[in-house]
């Protein structure tokens, strides 16, 4: 069953009077429980594509179907509801809130959903990414890699149907990177989470069930 599908996805932006085409007719489909790696050079449009697929932005043309719903046919409130239900996101720049501790950062989305024992869950996932000892530390007291892992724990804790991750291991050393890879695929196995990853790591891309290569906004290869 296809959970995520894009048809002729195009994104244009106006840059000083000129129309810059960031994405150009991208087609893709991801089965539930599968994993897709998006690769490509810097500036090729990977993050833009991920944002469109997750319903954070609107395409200039084409459409995205998430769990059967056409995102471009929805208004912002309906898209929000879909995101709440299906989507998890790991950002390229982490997006941790500096005023919250690691534990609070992870617990916040759970609390917003009104989940009981939000902090216990959060602590458990932080333990799984190896930060069980750093619960009450603030992001500024953590290294880049540690911040990355907090961001991962936050996404995992929500147990999303589809997890979008923008370079989840980009800031990690090889060993930690491996551990994070393991975590991602554990989640994929245990909970049937669909993974959509942007990555430069050949190893990670190879482990995914499908791979899509972007070049200047066009799909140049699929596997």
């Amino acid at each position: 069953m296809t959970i995520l599908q894009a048809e002729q996805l195009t994104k244009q932006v106006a840059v000083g009077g000129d129309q810059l085409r960031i994405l150009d007719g991208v087609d893709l489909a991801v089965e539930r429980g599968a994993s897709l790696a998006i690769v490509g050079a810097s500036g090729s449009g990977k993050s833009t594509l991920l944002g469109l697929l997750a319903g954070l932005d609107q395409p200039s043309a084409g459409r995205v179907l998430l769990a059967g719903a056409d995102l471009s046919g929805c208004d912002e409130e309906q898209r929000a509801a879909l995101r709440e239900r299906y989507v998890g996101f790991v950002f390229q720049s982490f997006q941790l809130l500096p005023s919250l501790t690691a534990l609070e950062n992870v617990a916040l989305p759970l609390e917003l959903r009104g989940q009981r024992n939000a902090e216990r869950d959060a602590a458990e996932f932080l333990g799984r990414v190896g930060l069980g000892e750093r619960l009450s530390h603030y992001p500024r007291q953590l290294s880049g890699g540690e911040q990355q892992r907090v961001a991962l724990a936050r996404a995992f804790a929500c147990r999303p149907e589809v997890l979008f991750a923008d370079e989840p291991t980009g800031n990690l050393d090889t060993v930690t990177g491996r551990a994070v890879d393991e975590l991602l695929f554990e989640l994929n196995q245990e909970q049937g989470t669909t993974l959509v990853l942007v990555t430069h790591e050949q190893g990670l891309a190879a482990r995914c069930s499908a791979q899509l290569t972007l070049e200047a906004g066009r799909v140049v290869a699929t596997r």
Partner: protein
Amino acid sequence: MIAIAVKLLLRNWRSGALRLVVGSLLLAVAVVTSVALLADRVERALTEQSATFLAADLAVRGPNPPPPVWQQWAQQQGLRASRIAAFNSMVYAGDEMHLAAVKAVDDGYPLRGEVVISEQPFSQLAADWQPSRSGPPRGQVWVDSRLLPLLDVALGDTIELGTTELTIGKVVVTEPDRGGSFSLFGARVLMHYQDLEAAAVIQPGSRVRYRFLVAGESVEVARFNQRLSAELSAGDDQHWELITPERAEASIADTVQRGRTFLLLAGSVGVILAGVALALASRQFADGQLAQVALLKCWGVGAGRVRRLYAAQLLLLALLGSAAGLLLGWLFHAALLAVLADYLPASLPAAGGQPWLVGAATGVLALVGFALPALWHLPGLPPLAVLRSDIAGSPLGAAARLAIAAAVAVALLYGYSGNLWISLALLATLAALALLIATLAVVLLRVARSAGNRLGGVWRMAAANLWRARLHSQLQMLGFAAAIALLMVMAVVRGSLIDEWRWQLADDAPNHFLVNVAPYEIEPVKALLAERNLSSAGWFSMVRGRLVEINGAPPPADLKERHESLNRELNLSWSATLPENNQLVAGDWWPADLTLGAGEPIPMSIEVELADELGLQLGDQVTFSIGGLRFSAELVNTRALRWESMTPNFYFLFPEGVLEEFPRSGITSLHIPASEKLVINDLLRRYPTVVVIELDKVISQIQSVVNQVTQGLQMMTGMILLCGVLILYAGVALSMPVRLQQSALLRTLGSSRRTVLRIQAVEFALLGGIAGLIAAIAAELALAAIVEQLFAGGAQLRPWLWLAGPLGGAALVALLGVSYSARSVGVPPLQLLRQLD
């Protein structure tokens, strides 16, 4: 929902993002609450008193002893009656003396209400007070606590009043009819009416205010009122005035209302400044929330829910901040009360609910008007903002925010004053002043920038920083300039202005007035003075009369209401020649040897400003009533007076040979050197009805009044200064990201910590210096107006203001600013750069 809002609020509080928001809110609420509480309690004290304000159901007020026949009428009507005489007189104990406000009451007093007395001088404890349904018995006086130290006496001692000695029986805390004007000068001495004769302090021509009081069944009181009114108007007797409790109440209510409006409007200046700080702090808070809101949106939290989450946080803030503000306001009002204690009734009733309501409403409205607009755009933030930091939503435009803030400011002012016109006018004035200061600030900033460019280095950076954030710089300068200017004005008024005024007088300028000298005493008094080698500035005689008609008709009611001089007895005097220090403005002075033929109009001279106010022209006929006798004169000239000459001055002058047969008294002024001061005691012991006004004491009394009032005002200014500090902090906090970046950059480029700190110090010093300069200009202008109004002196520049303003401002703001922004320097540059991406 509420739980998570509380959680978010707590975390925001912990991060410090809310501290300035809450601080500004707190201050706004505290300022308003404190003045509202003060006003409300004083108002309550006055209205409570006014029920018994006359100590009677009807009072008749006049300059002569009430005719005995009134007593009979009252008895016929079955009413209780009482007589009161009030006047100023010297009282002595040993070598000490004091010009007391004496009130003589008979056995009937008070007809309504109670005299509150105590045996514990100065006690503020209600337990020490006893209500009394009568005045002092014969041979006793009850006195204000403060008279005891003034005369160095205690309860049970005796004081001399005129030619008698009276024992101090009790301390009087308050009388029902003490009046709305809390006595600033003479201490109260309450004595028995029948001791008056023995004291012999009242002589023909003395200024005594008599009252005849009645109380009883309201029908009978009304009947008595009718009878008396009919009688008085039949006899065309305009010396007596009937006062009902309603009338007394109305006049108090009016004064109180005006006082409260003034206080609250003064407080609103603080609220508006706090509002500016609140708006800036909220902007900063909103900036800090962008990341969080973007995340929430990304997680699928809808705009409506985000709005509710933030609305709940704001509401909680409003409640908590207002509650804390109310508490702070209460503390502050208690401090104000302590400072002003001498001029307020000893016991103030508790405040009602209204001040708390006003304070709480201020908190809520301030958040709505100043904080909410800054947060308005947050719920509409697109989720994409989480990926792209250049998306910051679309904040409300400056015009919209200004309009909302102005609307709320008008609503607040209207709530305080109850008068839309005053509110709009005040806001317009404040806006115009703000605009003026802001313009001045921008001009000075430009000057600083070009100077900075020339000086280079640290100066260039500092001036450029101020210029880049000029809107914030202007706002900060506004707050500080207002506070510094107020401080300066008060310092000058409090100290040097009164001194200056005192020193303007020549060394041998008269410093004492002798008033109320009976005609037969004048020669012996002159002899006594000559014996001590004291020369007086010349003797004048005066008689007291009322102005009852202008050109044959009573003065119009509105003029009578507006002009105090139509409602009391006036001092009328005579002179063959134009007195020294007087200047003819219009008309001609009468010949020195003027003799009036029968039927010829009596000429008269009036002080020019009074004539203008009364609408009098040369040739107008003015009728006076003196002790029941009528007498008319024609205005032939107007004069200008020099009040600071310290010689007796008269508004009304007549030729010789016109007023001499009326009861009159003498007045003179003279210089008594400190070494000869004891002559006053001799004089007063021999001539007890003479009143000596010691100008040096009057001046020091004025000084102490001004001191206490300015102390109260200074506390208000302190609050305004705090508002300025908040604006500074809010501005610095808003500019913190830029500051961090700059500091990190400078430090990676190799500047030392000290250099970066120096740039900031110079920047804040410049800011404060410019604010101080503006304050000096404003203070000079305000002082010129005050000097003109109050002291009738010429304008003069005060160089120390121009020095102290900029220097003080620079030091103050540099200290505050650097202490707050220094943390942007302490962090290692690497961490700074990391935090920024």
